[in-house]
C-alpha cells in the first residue's frame, strides 16, 4: 500500500510544533472570520495568501486550508445565535439553528453543528484520499446543460425551504433570480436595469444583499418585537449528544456525500452544498414537519453538507487546476504562486502532495472540533447581552462586513435596501432564504441556459438527452410536479393502492 505509506509520511511530516501552532491560530482566525457577518472564507483565504507569501509553501497552504475550513464552520455560530449567517454558506443553518437557540437549546445546536461539520469535513476528506482522480474526471461530465439543471433544481426546492407557504417561497426565489439579472450580462456587456448608474451596472453582489436581508432585517425585527427574557440562562449540555449523531447517521453520510460531490463540481460552492443537502435530508426524513422549526436533523444536514464541500472543492483543484468554489479558487491561485502547479500532471509529478493536503485537511478539521467545543460556553454569553446593546454593535459589524469585501460604499446602500426589503418580506411571511438562493443561482441559470443555446444554435434537445442532463431534468421536473398539492395527493393515493 504505497498510498497508505504516503499518507503516513504526510502526517509525520506535519507533526511539528510549528505546524500545530499554525493550525491552531489559523483555524481560530478562520472561525472568527466566518462568524463575523460579511467576512467570508474567500476573503479570509485571499487575505492570508498575501500575508503568508514569504512562508514555506507547505506552511502557507496549511494555514490557508485552516482558514478555509474554519471560516465555513464559523459562519454558523452567528447563524444559530443571531439568525444572521456569518458567510453565505451558513444561510441554510439559520432555518433550524436559530429556532433551536430560541427555545433555549443554543448549546445543543452548536454541538450539533460542530459534530455535523466535523463529520462532514471528515467524509469529504476521505473522498479526497480515495477518489481524487475519479471525482476530478467526473466533474468534467458536467457542462452548461447540467449546470442549468442544477440551478433549476435549486429553484424548485426554494418552495420547500419556506417552512410552510410554498407559493411565497417560489415568489421570493424568483425575486432573487430577477435581482441577479441586474447589471452587465456577458454576451454583449449590456447593463440591464442599471438606469445609467455605473455601480448598478456592476450588479448586486451576493454578500451585501445577504448581510442586509438577514442581518439588518433581523436587527429591525428584534428591535420592534417585545423584549425577551434571555433564553440561555439554563445552559443545556455543551458536549454534543452521541445519540443526536448515531440517530441520524444516514443523514450525515448522505449530506457528506452530497456536499463533497457539489464541492467537486466547478462553480458551485458551500452555499449550494448546504441547500442541496438540506433539501435531500428533508425529502428523506421521517420528521419532515419539524424542518424549519428547530429540527436537529435539518441543522445537521446543512452543516455536514457545507463542511463536506470544502474538501470536495479541493478535489478538482488538485486534479484539474479547476476550483470547486470561490475560496478554492484563491487556494488554487496560492498554490500556483507558490509554484506547486496543481493540475492533471500533479498525480504524476507530485502524488505525495495530494496526501499532504489530506493530512492538512484532517488537522484543520481536528482543530475545528476542539475550538468548536471550547467556544460554546463563551459564545452563549452573547445571548445574555440585552438587545439594546447587542443590536447596534451587530449593525455596525453588518456595515463593515458589507463594505469590507470590495471597499465600496455602494455596497452599504445595497445592504440597507435589502435589509428593508427583507424585513417587509418577512413581515408578510415571505421566506428570505429562497431570495438569497435565487440570487446565488440566478447567474448560474442565466449563463448556462444562454450558453447551452449558443452551443447548439437554439436546439434544446441536449438539455434532455445528455445522460447526466436526462437524470437531472427528470429529478427536477419530478420534484416540481410533486410540489403541486393536487399531484402529490394523487401520487400518495396511487402509492397507497
Amino acid at each position: 500500500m504505497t498510498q497508505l505509506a504516503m499518507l503516513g509520511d504526510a502526517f509525520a511530516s506535519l507533526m511539528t510544533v510549528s505546524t500545530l501552532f499554525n493550525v491552531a491560530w489559523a483555524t481560530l482566525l478562520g472561525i472568527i472570520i466566518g462568524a463575523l457577518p460579511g467576512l467570508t472564507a474567500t476573503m479570509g483565504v485571499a487575505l492570508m495568501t498575501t500575508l503568508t507569501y514569504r512562508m514555506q509553501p507547505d506552511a502557507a497552504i496549511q494555514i490557508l486550508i485552516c482558514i478555509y475550513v474554519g471560516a465555513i464552520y464559523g459562519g454558523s455560530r452567528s447563524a444559530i445565535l443571531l439568525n444572521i449567517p456569518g458567510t453565505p454558506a451558513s444561510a441554510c443553518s439559520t432555518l433550524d439553528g436559530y429556532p433551536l437557540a430560541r427555545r433555549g437549546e443554543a448549546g445543543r445546536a452548536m454541538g450539533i453543528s460542530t459534530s455535523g461539520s466535523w463529520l462532514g469535513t471528515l467524509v469529504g476528506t476521505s473522498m479526497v484520499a480515495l477518489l481524487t482522480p475519479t471525482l476530478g474526471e467526473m466533474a468534467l461530465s458536467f457542462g452548461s446543460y447540467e449546470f442549468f439543471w442544477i440551478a433549476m433544481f435549486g429553484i424548485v426546492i426554494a418552495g420547500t425551504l419556506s417552512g410552510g407557504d410554498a407559493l411565497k417561497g417560489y415568489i421570493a426565489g424568483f425575486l432573487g433570480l430577477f435581482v441577479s439579472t441586474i447589471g452587465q450580462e456577458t454576451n454583449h456587456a449590456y447593463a440591464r436595469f442599471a438606469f445609467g448608474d455605473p455601480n448598478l451596472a456592476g450588479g448586486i453582489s451576493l454578500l451585501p444583499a445577504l448581510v442586509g436581508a438577514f442581518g439588518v432585517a433581523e436587527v429591525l425585527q428584534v428591535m420592534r418585537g417585545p423584549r425577551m427574557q434571555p433564553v440561555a440562562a439554563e445552559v443545556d449540555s455543551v458536549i454534543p449528544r452521541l445519540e443526536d449523531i448515531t440517530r441520524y447517521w444516514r443523514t450525515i453520510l448522505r449530506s457528506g456525500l452530497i456536499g463533497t460531490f457539489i464541492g467537486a463540481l466547478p462553480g458551485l460552492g458551500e452555499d449550494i452544498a448546504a441547500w442541496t443537502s438540506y433539501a435531500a435530508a428533508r425529502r428523506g426524513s421521517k420528521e419532515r414537519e419539524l424542518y424549519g422549526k428547530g429540527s436537529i436533523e435539518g441543522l445537521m444536514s446543512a452543516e455536514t453538507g457545507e463542511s463536506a464541500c470544502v474538501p470536495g472543492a479541493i478535489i478538482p483543484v488538485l486534479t484539474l487546476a479547476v476550483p470547486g468554489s470561490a475560496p478554492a479558487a484563491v487556494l488554487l491561485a496560492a498554490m500556483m504562486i507558490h509554484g506547486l502547479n496543481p493540475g492533471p500532471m500533479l498525480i504524476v509529478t507530485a502524488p505525495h502532495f495530494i496526501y499532504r493536503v489530506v493530512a492538512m485537511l484532517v488537522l484543520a478539521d481536528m482543530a475545528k472540533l476542539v475550538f468548536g467545543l471550547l467556544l460554546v460556553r463563551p459564545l452563549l454569553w452573547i445571548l445574555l447581552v440585552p438587545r439594546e446593546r447587542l443590536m447596534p454593535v451587530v449593525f455596525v459589524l453588518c456595515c463593515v462586513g458589507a463594505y469590507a469585501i470590495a471597499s465600496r460604499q455602494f455596497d452599504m446602500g445595497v445592504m440597507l435596501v435589502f435589509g428593508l426589503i427583507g424585513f417587509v418580506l418577512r413581515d408578510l411571511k415571505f421566506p428570505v432564504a429562497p431570495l438569497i438562493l435565487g440570487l446565488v443561482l440566478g447567474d448560474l441559470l442565466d449563463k448556462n441556459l444562454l450558453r447551452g443555446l449558443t452551443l447548439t444554435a437554439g436546439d434544446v434537445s441536449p438539455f434532455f438527452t445528455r445522460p447526466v442532463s436526462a437524470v437531472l431534468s427528470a429529478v427536477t421536473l419530478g420534484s416540481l410536479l410533486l410540489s403541486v398539492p393536487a399531484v402529490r395527493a394523487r401520487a400518495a393515493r396511487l402509492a397507497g393502492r
Partner: protein
Amino acid sequence: MADESAASHVTPPPKARTDLITAAVLLAFAAAAFAGAWAMPTFTDRGGDPFTAPGIVPGFHAVVIGVLSLVLGVRAVLRGALRPDGGPPAEWRRVEGASTPRLALAAALGVALVFGLIGRVPFWAAAALFVASFTILFEWPMTPKERRLRRVIEGIALGIITGLVVTLVFERVFLVRLP
C-alpha cells in the same frame, strides 16, 4: 413560542387582504420589469445570436413572478380578502409588545449611519456615535430616573469601545481600509 419557525418569531401571518395587496404590488412590479426587459436591445443587428438577447432571462423571471402573484391574489380572495373584515386572522398586529415607533427609530438610526455619518466622519467616530445614540435612546424609556446618568455613560463607553475595537481589528488585522 417553541413551535414557531425562525421567520415567524414575532408576528402572526398577515391577513388575506394584506396578501391581496402584496399580490397587486408584485404584479405591478412584474409588469414594469417585463416592460423593461422587452425594451432591451437584442443585438441581432450586430450579428448577435437571438438567444443571447439580454432581455430574455429577466423577462422570463418577470413573467413567472407575475403568474405567481396572480395565484397569490386568487388564493387571497378565496381566503376571504374581499370580506369586510379582510379575512382571518383577526388578531392582526396585536402581538404583545411589538412596537412600530421602536422599529421606525431603529430604521432611522440605520439610515442615518449609512447615508449620513459613514464617509463624512472617521469610521470609528461614526460607529461610536451610532452605537451610543442607539443604546441611549432605546434604554431611556425603560430606565428609572436615578439610573439614567449611569446608563448614558455606559452607552457612550460602549459606543467608543465598539468604534475603536472594530476600527482597529478591521484596519490592522483584516487590512480593510474603512471609509
